[in-house]
């Protein structure tokens, strides 16, 4: 997060490689620019320890060998439960489909697009827990959940900025 400049190159690369067009709502990664605090950061599926999205009653979401979420459009009924449960707003529900990161099969385009080293892909290591965000994001729309997630993480970065000066 300390390296993110808010340029959204990750977002444009993601949408472009999936659709040939550029659009925030078609990107699987979404940058939040908080002008009030100078904080910018992308929000994307972190393959969390809890896997809240597996709540899917149709089993349209499964976990792949890279730990990525695999989405079955045929099984999905667009009920929106997974979108509701994801505590950080990493799932987007559109009129026709569900949009979630699948790690581009192991070579994420967003990581390639970032010239600042703000994004890395670490296939190994302990999964991240998102438990602390479940309470604060309850009942919020995905955009607001992303904002809460980024603000919360940004608070400690801002402390570091202040201490550094």
């Amino acid at each position, binding site marked *: 997060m300390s390296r993110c400049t808010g*340029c959204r190159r990750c977002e444009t690369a993601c949408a*472009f490689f999936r659709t040939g067009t550029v659009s925030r709502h078609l990107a699987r990664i979404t940058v939040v620019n908080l*002008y009030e605090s100078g904080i910018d950061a992308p929000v994307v599926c972190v393959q969390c320890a809890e896997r809240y999205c597996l709540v899917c009653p149709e089993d349209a979401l499964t976990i792949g060998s890279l730990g990525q979420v695999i989405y079955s459009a045929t099984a999905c009924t667009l009920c929106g439960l997974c979108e509701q449960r994801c505590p950080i707003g990493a799932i987007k529900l559109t009129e026709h489909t569900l949009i979630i990161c699948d790690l581009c099969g192991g070579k994420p385009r967003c990581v390639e697009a970032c010239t600042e080293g703000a994004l890395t892909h670490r296939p190994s290591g302990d999964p991240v827990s998102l438990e602390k965000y479940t309470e604060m994001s309850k009942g919020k729309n995905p955009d607001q959940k992303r904002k809460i997630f980024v603000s919360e993480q940004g608070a400690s970065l801002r402390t570091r900025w202040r201490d550094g*000066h």
Partner: protein
Amino acid sequence: MAINGYGGRILRVDLTERAFQIEPTDLDWMKSVIGGRAANSKRLLEELDFSCDPLGPENMLIMGIGPLTGTLLPASAYYTVTAKSPLTGILGDSAAGGHFAAEMKLTGFDQIIITGAFESLSYLLISTDGVEFVECPHLINAPIIETTCAIRKAHEDTAIQVAAIGPAGEHCVSYSTIVSSGNRVNGRTGMGAVMGSKKLKAIAVRGWQSAKVADPPLLLSEVRALEKIIMSHPEYGKRHHMGTTMLMQDLNSIGILPTNHFQEGMCPYVERISGEALAEKYKVKNKSCFNCNVHCSRYYICGQHEAEGPEFETLCSFTSRVGNDDLAFALKMNAVLNQMGLDSISTGEVIGWIMECQEKGILTPEDMGGLSLTWGDTDAIGDLVEKIAYRQGIGDLLAEGAWRVSQRFSGKARELVMQVKGLDIICGDPRGIKAYGLTYAISSRGADHLRAEPYFELTNRKKEALARFGTVKAADRLSEEGKAPLVTYSEKIALLCDSVTMCKNIGLCMDVLNFEHAATLLTAATGIPYTPSQLETAMEQCIDRDHTINTRFGVTRDEDTLPARFLTEPLTRGPTRGSTVSIRKMVDEYYALHHWE
């Protein structure tokens, strides 16, 4: 519906009637102007009542983007706002980066044309579906970021991008700005006052379309090529580290850093106010406009003040130009000006002009309602900026801008305003950069470098100068030879940047965009087969059109000149010592190249 490259629709909003109309983008109309600034000028020429009061409801406020805005093209982040300028009374426009333009693209509107005026302060929420009119009495005098956050909160959506005015715009200060993405500014020619006069606090955009292009693989390969050029550019590291603030030391080293209101070109304390000092002491991270890989902007924290920026113009305007050696004060001013919505160049000129006039006894404190200003008096500057933004006391007069205020005083006072056609000169002494001098003189929005940004004259590329502009002197900053051809070339690329809406630091200063690249990019985006020579002709026609617009506004060739100081008073120290500008000769040559009367 969306056509390749373009959103495909034009939005017209009548604030008086609180009504809007959507019409399809006429591709034949758009093709010859591409988009952005050139399209805005064309619209203005076709539809504006030239005699209108710039602060009246009949003035048009036009926001324009182009076919590559918000696409994979690096720094395709700009939008231009155009209107009759309340500061100069002629063609007014100003571009800004950030994230507004990319979101405007997703609304599907290539151009937003606003006329009329609200009865009470309101904002527009423009989405793919149309326009919502929202009254906002709670946002009276709200600064920019507070306004942005309030609008995002009200609609529970942080993806909304907001272009807003601050208190200065609401009070119709002639050089007030529009600010989006927190700190990205449409700074020049008082576009904020046009919004303020319409009681239009903000324009918020949120879209659900996609930026579609005709040939994605072709666009991708061209973008990859350009990205390689940018990343391996010799200036990349420096620009990434300091952005345009690198120019503090650069300009000082060649003796053209405006010091004490252009009385000197070298600043004895430049190291304390330099881009290097800023980066070392206060920068906490890099910032960036949409999809850019240079990330030249910066976020800083300095005591109680934090903001994105400053760019060179703001830094210089509030340090050496007004005799201030305190970097922390300039950083405070950057935050304050951006949040109040004041143009730093024109505000700095008002201050510097009074300082010099009072130093020389040309103006007295009594002339200025008791105001006494001396070099580097930061307390007085801070006070005055506040007064200007709210038009309090003497601020009410000074809100008219230095040039207009000077008309009340002696010829000597008028002569000391550093302006062309009513617009205040940027921070770069033309005595040591002759092509820039010519650019200030001929620029269609008044004294300004961005109409051509002939950075090439500073690069010392002599061989290339001979091949491209007919003389090695084109790369010699102190020479007047070859500068007219350099400027006529650069102004086409500058307009091209403004029309494809790419950043000029990259497109022009880093010399990345040319007609060949642009033709490929535009062909890939629109599916219309553009050729380089076609584009060049199109840009020439657009420049002729701007000239026609200003002729209609009553501008004459005599006004294509520079303040007397630059023509007759040589600088006394440094590498630009002894040089003055022979402006008439360059302007005549420039007119001949354009075949203008």
